[in-house]
């Protein structure tokens, strides 16, 4: 399966591919090397727990919310 992931801020889009047909959000984070303590994840615009599964065609947004200052 393939999911489109948007990274905010920066509005960068990356495609992540997995062999399985559905995966957890936390697997995507791990794949991208992002610490779950520092982000919030939206699926189709809704805040979603990292243990939730996503599948082909889901829109995932990763908001970087931990910053200095």
């Amino acid at each position, binding site marked *: 399966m393939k999911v489109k992931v948007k990274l905010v801020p920066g509005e960068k889009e990356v495609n992540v591919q997995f062999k399985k047909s559905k995966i957890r959000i936390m697997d995507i984070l791990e794949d991208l090397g992002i610490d*779950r303590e*520092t982000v*919030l994840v939206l699926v189709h615009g809704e805040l979603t727990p*990292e243990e939730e599964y996503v599948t082909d065609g889901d829109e995932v947004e990763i908001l970087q*919310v*931990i*910053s200095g*200052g």
Partner: protein
Amino acid sequence: MECSKCGGRGVISIRYLGQVLCKECFFNYFQEKIRKTFVQQRLISKNDRVAVALSGGKDSTLTLYILNNLRQKEKFELFALIVDEGIRGYREKSIELAVRNCEFLGVNYHIVSFKDFFGFSLDEVVNSWPDTLKEPRSPCTFCGVFRRRILNNTARELNATKIATGHNLDDNIQTLFMNVVRGDVKSILKSYPERKISKSFVKRIKPLANIPEKEIAAYVLLKKIPVYFGECPYSWEGMRNLMRETINSVENFMPGAKINFYNYMLNTLSLMKKRFIGKIELKTCEICGEPSSHDICKACQLVQQINNFMKKE
């Protein structure tokens, strides 16, 4: 995923509770935690005049909203202090949001700048500080010392009885670890739990001290409170970033580590304080007259150094 409490649609996973919560249950959980803090630590009393140190970011903005909400039940005065360090491309935007939130809530605000108070902006300091110096400093060092000075003096002038800051659980543990590895017992004792060591210092309160940063971000997002999520261009304080990563790794390995550690420190420090009490002696700064542990306070030392570099340019 279902909410562990009501079966609704889960929005956030609170790993240290082993629960997933829906929006409503998360709001209840979050608000109850904060309510407890106010009651247990008696953060606010009647006739207080509270200055919120407001940056426009999520933590301080939420602190403002919480205190403003509390005014419906309790009688106290509230205003915001906005410090403009002079960081181009960053602070203008966050101040704009800070002001917008104050106006929306009907809270008075005062903006004080480094430039007006000390004669230079943080940008100017960073640009004039030579890289060749033996003691390399992160901009955060100046920023922190100067910001605290401005906040305290302005709050005092405006007759505030308390300064409320947005420090969260993650900030507190990072600072604590930084002081621990530096062996700086004094700094630790001075800040945990808040204790007044001089009548020149306005008492500080941290209503979000036991709330993980991620929960604050989630709450602000779900409540649609307009906050600035930008990052300070100077926020590369190496040590703090290292601490953040390290502490988060521990939390990921063992959810609950952060709050456990925070509670452990609070308990230990109250014991330590009994032993060290009275050992923190304060002098009066020869230049500015503020309380200080040295003959010349940290802020005045830095100002002198900076003025020297600026003259040489």
